């Protein structure tokens, strides 16, 4: 190995340490008793191993229910985004219709509006529709988003028109072109959009907190916040064990889609 390469690896290793360090500490500390977590200076390897934090977590929370809620919401939201954002993205990128430019500008405009501004009106709207405390209320507002539309449009622009023309010449209808020709080419972008939406939905805290008025509709992040932070003190053991439990499914999704994800980011030129 050359000197330059060694140096490169050293720098990369350092970067890895900085990024992964807190994560490893979280994982290890979730097996420590409360007093050891709070110890100053902090320890890496647990002196006393305990499963108490996890036992506490699983016995105090109706875990299967919250996990199922989170999964249902995240899967529906992701599926909705993949479908609707690619449809609209396709229309904006490849179809010629009056008002296309205005529609695209409207999408861009929506990207600029912070979610907090629309939060309360959206909740009032959902509850006036009678959807408070329902899965529909948890899922509906997130089925499509301006970011997804924008991402899909940018990717679809890179697909050559000739391909679509050729399909049209061969006698394929618009639906068939979209399903059979365009979508299969979009896999990297769909993987990117899928993982970003899944993550956002999985981690979403405020919306489910407010929309779910009874705790059987809580999602994991809301449920984990229930007992880990009190009025005057935080229970770090519970907090860390909960964080580990929330992160694991996300890790699995990411590892499964990682290859596509990297390509998607590279080809759309988005970060």
């Amino acid at each position, binding site marked *: 190995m050359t000197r330059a390469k060694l140096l490169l690896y050293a720098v990369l290793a350092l970067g890895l340490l900085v990024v992964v360090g807190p994560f490893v500490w979280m994982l290890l500390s979730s097996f420590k008793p409360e007093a050891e977590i709070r110890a100053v200076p902090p320890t890496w390897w647990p002196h006393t191993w305990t499963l108490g934090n996890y036992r506490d977590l699983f016995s105090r929370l109706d875990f299967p229910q919250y996990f199922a809620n989170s999964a249902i919401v995240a899967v529906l939201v992701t599926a909705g985004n993949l479908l609707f954002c690619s449809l609209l993205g396709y229309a904006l990128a490849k179809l010629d219709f009056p008002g296309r430019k205005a529609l695209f500008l409207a999408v861009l405009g929506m990207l600029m509006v912070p979610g*907090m501004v629309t939060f309360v009106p959206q909740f009032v709207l959902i509850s006036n529709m009678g959807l408070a405390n329902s899965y529909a209320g948890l899922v509906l507002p997130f089925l499509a988003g301006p970011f997804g539309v924008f991402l899909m449009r940018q990717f679809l622009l890179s697909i050559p028109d000739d391909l679509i023309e050729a399909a049209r010449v061969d006698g394929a209808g618009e639906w068939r072109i979209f399903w059979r020709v365009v979508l299969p080419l979009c896999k990297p972008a769909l993987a990117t959009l899928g993982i970003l939406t899944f993550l956002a939905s999985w981690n979403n805290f405020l919306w489910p907190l407010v929309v779910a008025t*009874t705790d059987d509709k809580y999602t994991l992040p809301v449920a984990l916040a229930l007992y880990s*932070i009190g009025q005057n003190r935080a229970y770090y053991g519970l907090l860390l064990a909960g964080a580990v439990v929330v992160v694991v499914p996300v890790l699995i999704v990411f590892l499964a889609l990682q290859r596509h994800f990297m390509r998607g980011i590279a080809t759309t030129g988005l970060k």
Partner: protein
Amino acid sequence: MRRVLAVGVAAALALTACGRDAGDSGETAEAVGAGKATGEVTVWAMGTEGEKLAEFAKGFTAENPDAKVTVTAVPWDSAQQKISSAIAARQTPDVSMIGTTLQGEFAKTGALDPTPAGLFAQDSFFPGAWDTTVVDGTSYGVPWYVETRGIYYRTDLAAKAGFPHGPKTWDDLSAMAAAMRSKAGAKWGISLQPGKTGSWQSILPFGWSNGAQIATADGYTFDTPQLAEALRYYQSFFTGKLAPTDLPQGALEPAFVRGEIGAFMSGPWHVGILNEQGGKDFASKYTVAPMPSKQSSTSFIGGSNIAVFKDANNRDAAWKFLAWLSKPDVQVRWYQTVADLPAVRSAWSDPALSGDPILQVFGEQLKSAKAPPAFPTWSQVAAAFDVQAEKVCVAGADPAAALKAVQNQASSIGTGS
């Protein structure tokens, strides 16, 4: 991000509140019917209270066989957002637990039901606790549980420092903190919160102890010589290097256990943390002193109220449930269930509480403890206070000038009523 959202929610709430019958002063309540409670009562409660209340409320159902209490647990950290959004969209439950310092804000939206006359005896509660339910002369809900602050100190170090019975006065506290460093080998004589969120809870008791009033009926009054003197006294612990200004979160308890910090100011929940971290013998090494006195020994009263919403589906049973929670024997049992200190004074004569010397200190302190004014704008003003407090404690800013700045901000924010 959460803070930004909280402001957004508050703003939206202010807008929607205009369209509602906002609570005018002197609002009167309908009476609550006689007889047993019937039907379902939905309750929101935070944290451990939310976790344990459903099981505990079976006692209410035993006395009222046709009534049922359904509890939804809400995370403490985000209760404010959840309740304010629910008020805006009229999705409130029948009953909710409400942190004492948020009472003014929620009452002002007009969403809380005024407390019916005759259902509760005001003087059965600690006066400071009852005051937190009163907004513009009308009481909304009742105190549920209370907490207050005292001075935790290491008895062994205090003895070496020449204060075997703990500090009694302001001068004692300064002298003890100094002697803990010079004679007892502690690294820091005391730990006090050096500004940042919630530091007003530590600083205002010194002001009250010095006779300061932070508000009158007309508005906030921070710019007084009494409060300035108290803040200068508080600052002296930092300028005199008796108290750390940069203690990391979570470092206090281990340092206290090791004897590196000789004393600190906190509430009853710290007993559990210390005994958990110090091991079984540690309980004999520390105790709690009442707040040191200047003109008086006066602490901060916190805790939680419990209130009924105007949109309640089952108002009658909701108030009966609150009346049940306020019975002295139920308050004692609730203490035994979750260690919440009773807001009802007569509950304190029960042996479960009167047998514990540290609890007795807190119980005595509660009789005179004070709460900040229940103005709807209090949390905004408190945040401004905390910022200035940090400048005073950490950067050595002039206390009187800092209080002038707080007063300017408080005046422009207004009381909101």
